[in-house]
């Protein structure tokens, strides 16, 4: 079974995308399954490192938190652009944040969250020291951003990935 | 009534997106440094993709959607390879 379907979640996702792009029918389901199985086997040939999820519920919670944050920061950045940065009072800055995450999968998730949220940009990450260099659009207090990243996002990511 | 609302919203979205593409194009042409130009090009690709989706709604043809997907993929590959070029000065190592 695992030899035939080495990455079941990837295969399922590929079948879902195939059915989204074409209309749903029995023929497309079979064709999509064949393509997904072959693609998953090709993916297994690359031998990627397996990612283990410990608590998926924490990820669902994170998803809703990030969704709300994206809406909030969209409004904030749009207002800042409209008012020309509080009429010249806004200033941006770099923040260095030491991260506890080391595994590449949760790190890339964190990168997606930080970049998808307007107002923060992931600039650089150093693998050896684990320090993330973040650029913040509207800097008020450096400590605020450290607690935001570490307590709001990183905590849940540490919880959901072993 | 709803035809009027939709015509207005679609025209507004098309004009706004076209204007957005022009502004991104301005950054692409005049951006003082290379990274500004690449950022302008990335934004240009995204707005062009969204403009295609809106035009697809207006015309009612599914082919605009496919074109939008191709634009998205091309924009991603182009931006990544240009950014790679900016880091190293060469694309293939």
């Amino acid at each position, binding site marked *: 079974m695992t030899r035939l379907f080495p990455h079941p979640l990837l295969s399922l996702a590929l079948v879902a995308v195939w059915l989204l792009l074409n209309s749903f029918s029995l023929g497309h389901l079979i064709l999509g399954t064949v393509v997904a199985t072959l693609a998953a086997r090709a993916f297994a040939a690359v031998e990627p490192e397996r990612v283990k999820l410990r608590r998926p519920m924490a990820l669902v919670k994170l998803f809703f938190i990030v969704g709300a944050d994206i809406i909030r920061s969209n409004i904030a950045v749009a207002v800042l652009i409209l008012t020309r940065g509080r009429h010249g009072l806004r200033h*941006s800055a770099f923040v260095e944040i030491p991260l506890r995450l080391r595994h590449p999968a949760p790190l890339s998730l964190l990168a997606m969250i930080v970049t998808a949220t307007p107002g923060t940009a992931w600039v650089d990450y*150093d693998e050896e020291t684990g320090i993330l260099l973040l650029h913040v659009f509207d800097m008020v207090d450096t400590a605020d951003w450290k607690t935001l990243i570490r307590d709001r996002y990183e905590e849940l990511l540490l919880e959901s990935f072993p | 009534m709803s035809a009027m609302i*939709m015509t207005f919203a679609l025209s507004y*979205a098309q004009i706004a997106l076209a204007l957005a593409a022009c502004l991104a194009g301005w950054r692409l042409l005049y951006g003082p440094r290379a990274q500004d130009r690449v950022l302008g090009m990335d934004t240009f690709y995204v707005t062009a993709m969204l403009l295609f989706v809106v035009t697809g709604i207006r015309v009612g043809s599914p082919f605009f959607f496919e074109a939008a997907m191709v634009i998205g993929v091309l924009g991603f590959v182009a931006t990544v390879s240009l950014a790679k070029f900016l880091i190293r000065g060469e694309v293939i190592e």
Partner: protein
Amino acid sequence: MSWMETLPAWVAIPVALFLMLGATLTLLGTVGLVQLKSFYDRLHAPTLGTSWGAAGILLASMLLVSWTEGRAVLHELVIGIFLMITTPVTLMFLGRAALHRDRIEGTPGIPGAVERSDIPAPPGDALADPADAPGES
């Protein structure tokens, strides 16, 4: 445009609102791209277009096409997921590229390198051309 005549108002109004929201946010993002002064500030501007700008337009398209076809048409989701995955990659790459070039040129106001082998230590004595930077294998 035959579908416009039969469209009920409770579909038309949310679709129109989502369309206008998405287009406005994308436009504001590009206004920021032109207006802002430094490159790292401009790096934030396009995320407006790729987060809720794109989401608004794709949601509007999804609602409308699902109504006119009479079944759930969700293929706009594919574009949404694709944008969500690729935007961080391109912006991270661009940010790193800009940082790398600024460090080599010794631009003031840029945080120094966390000690790494592929970035020259003192910014002054490296050659200004990034193609000649050390660390190429």
